[in-house]
């Protein structure tokens, strides 16, 4: 009799533990995180440039070149070989997760290129790969916003 009583008590205890465990679970509602819209407005300068993997930064004077993005348009100052030769409009393929930037120079067809938008040393950078001359010659410009 006593043995049965102990088993019964243990059963109740087990049930109580299971109830407590189940009651302790609560469905967490995952809050949607809103990715910020990538805004590239402003004036950018070249901080690093390569041609077919060879560093050109110290060989060519990139300090005067600027590309200014504003209200869907862009202008270039002290031009260098670039994806486009003239000023015009630009767009990003996705405002939150952009992977491609499209330039439409005035009076010219649209040209697109993949780009990355990393934060390096606390500063946003734009890395653009393009071929302004022969298709086999690939250039990378790393742009940083001018303070």
């Amino acid at each position, binding site marked *: 009799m006593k043995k049965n009583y102990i088993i019964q008590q243990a059963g109740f205890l087990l049930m109580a533990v299971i109830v407590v465990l189940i009651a302790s679970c609560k469905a967490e509602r995952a809050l949607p995180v809103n990715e910020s819209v990538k805004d590239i407005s402003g004036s950018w300068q070249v901080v690093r440039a390569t041609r077919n993997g060879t560093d050109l930064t110290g060989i060519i004077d990139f300090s005067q070149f600027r590309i200014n993005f504003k209200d869907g348009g862009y202008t270039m100052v002290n031009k260098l070989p670039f994806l486009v030769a003239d000023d015009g409009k630009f767009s990003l393929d996705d405002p939150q997760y952009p992977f491609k930037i499209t330039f439409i120079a005035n009076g010219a067809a649209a040209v697109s290129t993949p780009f990355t938008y990393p934060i390096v040393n606390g500063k946003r950078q734009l890395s653009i790969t393009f071929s302004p*001359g022969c298709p086999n*010659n690939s250039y990378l410009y790393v742009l940083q916003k001018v303070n």
Partner: protein
Amino acid sequence: MRSYLHIKGKGLWKFCAFITLAIVLACCGEIITGVDQPATATVGSVVPITVHINIPTLGNGGPDYLIFGFLVPKGWKGAQNTTITYTSPLGNGTMNLVPDGTVAKNGGGLTWPAYMKKTFQNGGNLIDDVEWVAYQSDKAYPHSNGDALSGDLHIKIKVGADGNNTLVKLGYVITDTGNGFTSDNNGTYYSELITPCFELTGGTGDLVDFCNPQLTTINPPKSLDNDFITLTFDGTVTDTKLNNATETYLCATAYTSDGKTISVCEQTDKTRMTQTGPNSRKYQITLWPKSFFGTTGTQTISRMEYFITDKTGATKVGYGNTLAPFTYTFKCS
């Protein structure tokens, strides 16, 4: 008198062990035993080339596919203009292009062409405008105990797709998909063979000389006026009138698509060439032709003639160390 050539008793087994070890170390990798290749050809012709290979084996392994790399000028578009078959005791078949993006065995994440370029560079060619085209056998073969496989690769390549007369060292490399360009105690699993300069004639374009050092080179070798170009003057190639010059300058004339000529022949910072190292006698200038010559928006530069001068501009060096200008055509193929 004691002779050191006597091999007896205890010495004999040591000698035999050494020979056996030498054989073991020397075996077990793919070997290119020879290449039959003509010395010259004309642009646009189909050139037959035979690569003789031998694959000694030790122990059992595989089956692996044979990997073959063919070094040709980029302008020949080797991947489109080449067919390769093989004959071997295990059967005949074809060598197919390794599919794009296939990662090479032991290549550190590189594709086969990139792994070949990293390992064998430009095969002794002086202009970085050649490429390794990678092929793979259609069938795999086993490494069976002690068997030696010998066979031939039969290449047919239509040469000179870019129309240029060319001097180039063609290169050949083999390995297998199980090893890559590695060596271990069993041997070396690859073999490279670079042939002497092959001459291509009958073309309409400029002579592209990959074999002989040039007084001046332009990098990238193929570019347009909207590229940055780096022009190098190598004063070590031969004695020139600029041997003792402390500074050198570029004196150039551009020929534009609208029939104009634009000369920039001044001795200023704009044209000054920088010595690549102290007393290296190699001078470089990197420029954007559109800006250097100041072309208008619609003008394009089709070609350029140039000299290298001293600071006074009076002493000039031209093509082949003569007074004729160097020439460069802006084009992509």
